[in-house]
């Protein structure tokens, strides 16, 4: 093999792409020819430097957890409804407390615990619903940035009329809405886009006295809650907690009849 034949293959050989007879005669040529050997060595040298100096970015644990949670959420979507109530009571019955003691304690701690527990469930349910809609590719059943399109669509399918506002001027662009379920009841979901993030806002007629806790992080999603204009508001997104909280409070504060 001479240089003219070898030259086009030298780099490919350094990349492990030349084998068999051609690889064999190429190796022979590299031993005899300093020019081709130099080119070959240059690729290997650069590779050594790259692997030594250029960082390999490993996936952060938080990302891994979030992806896994998303898979598991998708896996469990068929049994979500069934699991909901079980977990709620399972929490009271688990741990050191059994049967009667749990009942007695629940009597005293009573509503506070149950209300707290319910609010936890609500946040978890909202996250599950958000993930399910994202995975299924049906975040919006009605896709429109026009509040006068989204609001009547939702009102026609619910027994209440949710306030709908586009806040594109503040970075939150209304992209549509859908009907979903929280606590077994149909609720309105307003879908917004904030930069590259999707935000689900669950809206239902006010049932809780106060939204506690107002902020939660579940499976890598932030859940911000508030009450206002006679509605419960639950926002779910991977938008940062402060921005999400300010946004949901802004929605709840607004005049209910745009």
């Amino acid at each position, binding site marked *: 093999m001479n240089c003219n034949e070898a030259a086009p293959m030298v780099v490919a050989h350094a990349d492990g792409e030349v084998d068999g007879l051609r690889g064999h005669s190429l190796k022979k040529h590299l031993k005899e020819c300093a020019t081709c050997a130099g080119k070959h060595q240059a690729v290997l*040298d650069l590779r050594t430097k790259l692997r030594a100096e*250029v960082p*390999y970015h490993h996936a952060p644990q938080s990302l891994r957890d979030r992806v896994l949670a998303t898979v598991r959420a998708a896996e469990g979507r068929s049994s979500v409804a069934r699991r909901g109530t079980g977990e709620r009571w399972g929490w009271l019955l688990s741990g050191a407390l059994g049967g009667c003691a749990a009942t007695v304690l629940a009597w005293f701690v009573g509503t506070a615990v149950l209300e707290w527990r319910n609010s936890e469930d609500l946040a978890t349910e909202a996250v599950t619903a958000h993930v399910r809609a994202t995975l299924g590719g049906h975040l919006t059943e009605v896709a429109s940035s026009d509040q006068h399109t989204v609001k009547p669509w939702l009102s026609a399918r619910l027994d209440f009329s949710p306030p709908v506002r586009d806040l594109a001027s503040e970075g939150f662009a209304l992209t549509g809405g859908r009907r979903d379920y929280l606590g077994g009841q149909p609720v309105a979901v307003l879908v917004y886009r904030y930069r590259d993030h999707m935000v689900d806002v669950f809206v239902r007629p006010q049932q809780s006295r106060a939204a506690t806790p107002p902020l939660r992080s579940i499976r890598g999603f932030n859940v911000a809650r508030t009450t206002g204009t006679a509605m419960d508001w639950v926002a779910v997104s991977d938008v940062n907690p402060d921005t999400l909280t300010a946004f949901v409070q802004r929605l709840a504060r607004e005049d209910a009849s745009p």
Partner: protein
Amino acid sequence: MTGHSRFEEQVLPHLDAAYNLARWLTRDAHDAEDVVQDACVRAMRYVDALRAGDAKAWFLTIVRHACYDWFRRNRPPEIAADEGAIDAAVDTAALSPEQIFTRGAETRALQDAVAALPLPYREVLILRELEELSYKEIARIADIPVGTVMSRLSRARALLQRSPLLQAIDGQSSRGER
């Protein structure tokens, strides 16, 4: 096997590769996470189409698509450039490497030089040198012919070898030998 356990067993082991690629393409940790999450959602949806033994290249193809969609939404200028024009510009610049690495050229480390490569070169270089994929696999992921993989790799390497820092290192290590 259900779709979800298929995803966990065959796709999830390549999460590091997915993140590494997304991180090198977007050059931002947070953006890379967004891209990988998007890619995972897509991969879960299509995991039934995955053939055995093919998972890494398959998943990275999806990650790359997610990256480019992300660019389209967030940084359109990065992918707007005509690739032929990039090749031509690079070949012209070959005569005067300082035109490419102007900013802080003396102190620019190799990793900065990689980050500064035009996107079409950066992706083939990362897939070959960090992910150790074959020309054929890279061709499939980047959706280009094998010949184009080779020419982009060779341009990327030439650019890195001409970066002043590398030249300085080479000058020291091989002085008098060449």
